[in-house]
């Protein structure tokens, strides 16, 4: 029964994918979209059923299908593990996935390749589910690379534009850098413990002390590199902003709500490993905090509505890693969920705006939309408040937990996190004011076509906005359902924060920070009506921020250019030299042959001379030399 359910869960989106690939064109756009949505919805329902079951029984479901890979000292099953963590993840992956599929039916309706889009989207959900339910690191790795592939496909969905294709390629390759790390981590664990299965690995790690601790540290580090790649942390974060080249639902689903959280999922999954390695945890916390800050600063000055959201995502992911680094896995998971709600909502809302403006993404060309698009405006406003950490919306609770954890861990981390939060509030409301307030700044023609989006777009927005508003309820301080639910996963029991003065003070500071950020944005953009400068006029530090600290350029200069130069050098010189050497041997022989012909000059006298010389040489060697 469980096996069947699990298979339905996994294969439903895959079936949707197959149908859309093979029959999508003939079925027509609406049918293809419906099938895509339904297949994910089926998964959602099944995950809900399984979730109920596990929530009640408290026993994870384990399913082994068949042997997949066998290496020397261990065998890898093709199997699923449905425990509290994976089911939780499944719920919001399939849930939000269904909503975004629904949204896409309308959003992509004008695209000629809508069925392809749904096929990719379904495939993504399939791989994401595989990633989540895999019972061992390698099955997870299938999903891990699979979602990377889908991300590649969807970022480059409009493949006629080579810049989009570049972005897609960049995303895939940067992910692969992380994947190599993950793979190395798998090797280390596999070699050390003869298994990569989560359950057995956990017991092995907890009981075995024969393994060199350095290896364990290395493994944790390697896995974290993998997480960095997928979850866009420093130094592998630059692909995510570029990934905004894909259609907006994709950004919402993959690059905000689900795929990019895979890193957090993996670290949480492997918490028993990371808990053993405080050094690595510190690294994670520092990198998380740094990413949160750096991305937030960049987001301050971006003018592309999706870019702002993208950097915001990177920044929020940084906060989650900060929590992970502090060992507060539940907190990170909590933020993942709330973030999924409000960030998906924000992306979809921005999609709605872009849709209304026929593809315009530059906030300098927007403004005044709140009158024409009230639903979009209100839902986005709720989400913005949530992400800014305004009481009592979901973001307040989760972010507050993170900051509180950081505060108890290290005050510097808390400071950084708080600054990032203030900035978040600022740039989010900068976005809101620029987009929805004041007057419209676009062309007349755009103005003429302005309209609120259709139902299929607004309904998901509304649902997500509601979730963003009340999502915090799952883990309120004092009634931490999530903490209890996840507790069986962690060997170290989570210390709940006792709500004392410090805690209330911290909450207050966080709330105040959010309000300050909003206030500054209000002063600047709503009250004074400032507009960001045109690209050419940006100067000073803003320019550095606007150009993203030139990190892309630095990478280009440090890695891409040298590799390409090396490639050209190898191709033009080394290859020529090596093959020239081989050819040279042949040529030298040929030259020898040509020169030798001159000796053979046809003169009998010479021939006789050599003859006699030969005779003398042989005779004297044989008889005179002794």
């Amino acid at each position, binding site marked *: 029964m469980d096996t069947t359910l699990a298979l339905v869960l996994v294969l439903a989106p895959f079936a949707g994918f197959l149908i859309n690939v093979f029959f999508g064109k003939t079925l027509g756009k609406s049918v293809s979209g419906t099938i895509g949505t339904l297949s994910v919805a089926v998964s959602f329902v099944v995950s809900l059923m399984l979730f109920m079951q596990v929530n009640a029984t408290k026993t994870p479901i384990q399913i082994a299908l068949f042997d997949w890979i066998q290496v020397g000292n261990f065998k890898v099953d093709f199997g699923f593990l449905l425990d509290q963590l994976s089911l939780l993840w499944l719920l919001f992956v399939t849930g939000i996935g269904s909503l975004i599929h629904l949204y896409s039916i309308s959003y992509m309706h004008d695209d000629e390749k809508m069925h392809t889009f749904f096929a990719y989207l379904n495939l993504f959900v399939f791989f994401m589910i595989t990633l989540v339910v895999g019972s061992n690191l390698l099955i997870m790795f299938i999903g891990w690379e699979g979602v990377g592939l889908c991300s590649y496909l969807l970022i480059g969905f409009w493949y006629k534009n080579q810049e989009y294709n570049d972005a897609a390629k960049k995303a895939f390759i940067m992910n692969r850098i992380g994947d190599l790390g993950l793979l190395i981590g798998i090797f280390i664990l596999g070699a050390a413990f003869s298994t990569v299965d989560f359950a057995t690995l956990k017991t092995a790690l907890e009981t075995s002390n024969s393994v060199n601790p350095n290896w364990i540290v290395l493994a944790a580090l390697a896995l974290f590199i993998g997480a960095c790649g997928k979850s866009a942390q420093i130094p592998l974060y630059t692909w995510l902003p570029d990934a905004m080249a894909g259609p907006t639902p994709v950004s919402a689903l993959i690059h905000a709500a689900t795929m990019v959280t895979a890193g957090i999922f993996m670290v949480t999954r492997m918490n028993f490993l990371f808990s053993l390695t405080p050094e690595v945890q510190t690294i994670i916390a520092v990198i998380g905090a740094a990413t949160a800050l750096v991305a937030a600063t960049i987001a301050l000055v971006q003018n592309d509505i999706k870019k702002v959201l993208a950097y915001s995502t990177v920044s929020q992911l940084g906060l989650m890693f900060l929590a992970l680094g502090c060992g507060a896995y539940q907190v990170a998971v909590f933020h993942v969920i709330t973030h999924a709600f409000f960030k998906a909502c924000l992306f979809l809302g921005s999609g709605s705006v872009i849709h209304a403006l026929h593809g315009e993404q530059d906030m300098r060309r927007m403004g005044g939309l709140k009158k024409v698009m009230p639903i979009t405006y209100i839902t986005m406003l709720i989400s913005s408040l949530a992400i800014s950490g305004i009481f009592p919306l979901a973001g307040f609770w989760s972010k507050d937990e993170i900051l509180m954890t950081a505060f108890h861990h290290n005050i510097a981390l808390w400071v950084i996190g708080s600054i990032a939060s203030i900035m978040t509030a600022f740039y989010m409301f900068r976005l809101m004011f620029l987009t929805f307030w004041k007057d419209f700044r676009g062309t007349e023609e755009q103005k003429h076509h302005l309209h609120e989006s259709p139902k299929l777009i607004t309904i998901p927005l509304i649902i997500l906005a509601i979730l963003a508003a009340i999502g915090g309820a799952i883990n309120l301080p004092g009634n931490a359902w999530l903490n209890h639910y996840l507790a069986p996963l962690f060997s170290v029991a989570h210390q709940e924060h006792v709500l004392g003065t410090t805690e209330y003070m911290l909450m207050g500071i966080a709330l105040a920070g959010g309000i300050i950020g909003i206030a500054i944005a209000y002063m600047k953009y709503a009250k004074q009506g400032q507009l960001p400068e045109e690209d050419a006029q940006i100067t000073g530090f803003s320019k550095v921020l606007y150009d993203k600290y030139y990190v892309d350029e630095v990478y280009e200069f440090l890695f891409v250019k040298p590799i390409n130069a090396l490639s050209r050098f190898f191709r033009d010189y080394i290859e020529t030299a090596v093959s020239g050497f081989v050819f040279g041997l*042949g040529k030298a*022989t*040929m030259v*020898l*042959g*040509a020169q*030798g*012909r001159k000796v*053979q000059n*046809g003169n*009998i006298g*010479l*021939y*006789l001379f*050599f*003859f006699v*010389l*030969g*005779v003398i040489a*042989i*005779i004297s*060697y*044989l*008889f005179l030399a002794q």
Partner: protein
Amino acid sequence: MNTLIALVGLGVLCLLFEIINLRKLLVPATILGLLGVLALTVSEYNMPGSYYGNMIAVNAFSVSFSSLFIVLTIFLIALSHNFYESHQSKLSDFIAIKIFLLSGAVAMVSFGNLAMFFLGIEVLSISLYILAASSRLNLKSNEAGMKYFLLGSFASGIILFGICMIYGAMGTFDTTEIAELSRSAELPIWFPIGIALVTIGMFFKIAAVPFHFWAPDVYEGSPALTTATMSTLAKVTAMATLFKLLTAMNAEISYQYQIVVVIVSMASMTVGNIMALKQANVKRMLAFSGISHAGYMLMTLLSTNNSAGNLLYYAAAYSLSGIAAFAVILYVCKNRDNEDIVNFHGLGKTNPLLAAILTGALLSMAGIPIFAGFFAKLTLFSQTIQAGYLVLVIVAVVNSIISVGYYFKLILAMYTKEADKARTGTPVLIYGVAIVSILLNLALGLFPSLVMDLLG
């Protein structure tokens, strides 16, 4: 012994055929006769004996090699029909000379006395002088004949001197007696000097470096069929004779002597192969290739007590592929001014069968498997490594690689260039010789034991 007599008789008969105006029957009759002789020879395989006061000593070695020579001669005579089409009146002369040449060759491998050896080699050489210069009005042919004659008689002088020294040392020409005497402790220095001089003379005959200079010129200048004779029959005869000389007289092969052989062998391979790379004339190229093969065959001298079978095999493999190659060359270059590679352009399209045969022959010479040439080299290498000359084998291997360069030059020309002039006619005998010889070569390649086991 009967072989020799029968051959001489056959030669005389050939001359008589002309007198009694049976020219048309000449070639088939001679071939039949040779087949008869072949049967006669083979029947002596199990009857070793010596005749005429050990002038002629028949044993497995002589029978096997004689049979090989007879087979080669059959092919050569079959090719004569087409080759001498425009000199019908002299056909019987040429064929008779070839038969006499064969008798010289047979004498060279079945001698029991140095006098017989000397006579054999002179009969062979004089016949070849005549054949080389046989295209009377062609200056190239004249020049080839003259060069061959001058250098050949010079070499004969050296051989004669060598024989004289051996005689001086031993007081006899009889190889059996010499072999016995050579076991005695005290040998006059003249004996090894004599052996060395005779060896040098034979180096000349097999065209080993540095006594090889005549070969390319003579091969190029001589009529193609004569070249075929020289490069197949004459070369393997000389090699077999050298081998036989050393074994029959039980000459203790000293270390220094072996070094000489090794150096000459290396030099022959290397010079032959490198010089062949830049040749445009196919006959000349094959001359150099022949020089390199002489180098390979010399390797058998390093372990004389068990390499007779290998030598026979190598000789057979080399000469059969040579015959196949020359059959194609004769066809392609008929009525052409020269034998340049240009003539072979496009053969792969116009005559795929002949092109394939020539390819096979060249592959065999290059030592590519399933052709006999491969096994020949294999056993040679194996034996030489066993004898402890690994360096020589490595040089030989490197040379095999070089040799592919020019063999494939010809193959490339056949398959990748466009033909300039169409060739007409399908002369049955040429096709027959080419096919039979390449098939024999293949058969030897697949079942080397057939030949290898003849001589233990």
